[in-house]
């Protein structure tokens, strides 16, 4: 079978969609929960999280230039404990996938199809994500490239149009209640969205130049940080404290834009753009999960796992988080330490185990 490979440019695009997908919806509302006037200060934490991911990626590609996370876990921790660690990793990716799948169904039902059952929305989402995962990363990355020229036309418009309504006074007073709210607001974007970049390590065998992965993560993180920063600045600048009462501040931002009598209510178009990025994000998560399962079952291909796990991901999303509040609680209160443990803790555990095994073996050899 031909090896599927993606270029650096394609990887950076995938990584940008990975954070922007739900980040553009969730990060503004999470940050403004803690602070409004200083909200923009919390955004660079996303970049810090990206740096953390890049650091881990650097260690990974130095030690294992052509293995994925799950392959590296097997190599370091041995087959018994390694498999347990892989199961943990896959389960975490699965849970992250359920959150994103739930965000997808919630977003579509709330924004556009209030009378359609969530199951139906989940079915169409699941079908498309499973198809994308089935055709593979290379075709998907190429399709992303195809969409970019379109996005390059639409994105500046979506940013420039609300600029006229922006009011600088919404950002005063600076440091209205000190550093603590800024720190608290930073946590989710740093440890949930920033650490999601580390999913790219699972794609290492598919990269044309894996040694450049850390740099690519940094580039993608900086671009996404700038984009999210613009979004947060605009939402706060336009709405001020009202932003706390909005479910999706970004959509409301687009909704207030109007030019003449014909260009108005652009939020549906914006919603479609967001939807595309969410699907893209889900596809990457799904691919990461399926390749992990491939390593677990030691099969040659991952495609047999696409349909069952994809369906499980969407049903799990509906089942685990019955409403918005449950999901928001999970993202804010469980997510940071959960992902920190998985992304930093589990590999460290693997490396420690490798050391221990190495010493044990040496001792056994000396003793024998």
């Amino acid at each position, binding site marked *: 079978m031909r090896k599927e490979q993606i270029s650096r440019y394609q990887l950076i695009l995938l990584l940008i969609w990975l954070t922007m997908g739900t980040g553009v919806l969730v990060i503004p509302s999470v940050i403004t929960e803690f602070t409004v006037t200083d909200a923009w200060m919390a955004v660079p934490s996303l970049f810090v999280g990206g740096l953390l991911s890049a650091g881990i990626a650097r260690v990974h590609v130095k030690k294992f230039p052509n293995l994925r996370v799950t392959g590296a876990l097997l190599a370091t921790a041995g087959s018994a404990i390694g498999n347990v660690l892989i199961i943990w990793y896959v389960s975490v990716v699965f849970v992250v996938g359920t959150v994103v799948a739930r965000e997808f169904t919630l977003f579509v039902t709330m924004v556009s199809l209030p009378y359609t059952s969530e199951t139906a929305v989940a079915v169409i989402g699941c079908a498309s994500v499973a198809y994308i995962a089935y055709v593979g990363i290379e075709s998907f990355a190429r399709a992303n490239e195809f969409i970019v020229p379109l996005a390059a036309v639409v994105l500046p418009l979506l940013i420039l149009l609300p600029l006229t309504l922006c009011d600088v006074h919404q950002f005063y007073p600076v440091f209205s209640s000190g550093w603590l709210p800024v720190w608290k607001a930073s*946590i989710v974007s740093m440890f949930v969205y920033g650490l999601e970049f580390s999913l790219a390590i699972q794609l290492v065998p598919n990269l044309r130049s894996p040694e450049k992965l850390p740099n690519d993560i940094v580039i993608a993180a900086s671009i996404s940080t700038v984009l999210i920063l613009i979004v947060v600045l605009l939402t706060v600048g336009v709405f001020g404290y009202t932003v706390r009462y909005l479910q999706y501040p970004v959509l409301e931002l687009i909704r207030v834009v109007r030019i003449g009598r014909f260009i108005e209510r652009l939020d549906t178009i914006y919603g479609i753009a967001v939807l595309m990025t969410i699907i893209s994000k889900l596809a990457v998560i799904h691919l990461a999960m399926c390749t992990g399962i491939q390593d677990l079952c*030691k099969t040659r291909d991952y495609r047999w796992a696409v349909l*069952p796990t994809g369906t*499980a991901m969407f*049903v799990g999303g509906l089942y685990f988080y019955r409403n918005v509040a449950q999901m928001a609680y999970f993202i804010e*209160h469980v*997510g*940071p330490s*959960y992902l920190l443990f998985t992304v930093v803790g589990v590999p460290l555990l693997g490396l420690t185990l490798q050391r221990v095994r190495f010493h044990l073996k040496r001792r056994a050899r000396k003793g024998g």
Partner: protein
Amino acid sequence: MVKRPTWGPILVWLLSVCFVVIAYLALMFQWWPDFQPLYPLELVFGTATEWLFGL
């Protein structure tokens, strides 16, 4: 040629199908509405997040 174990894919399929059927039926007919499957995670990592970051 490498011998390919087949139990893995079968197990994954079985687990997924069982999960999908049970979870979806539970969702549709409101079986155990108070049961929260992710409660252990919430307990452990919720406490950890509070302890680490003060959230």
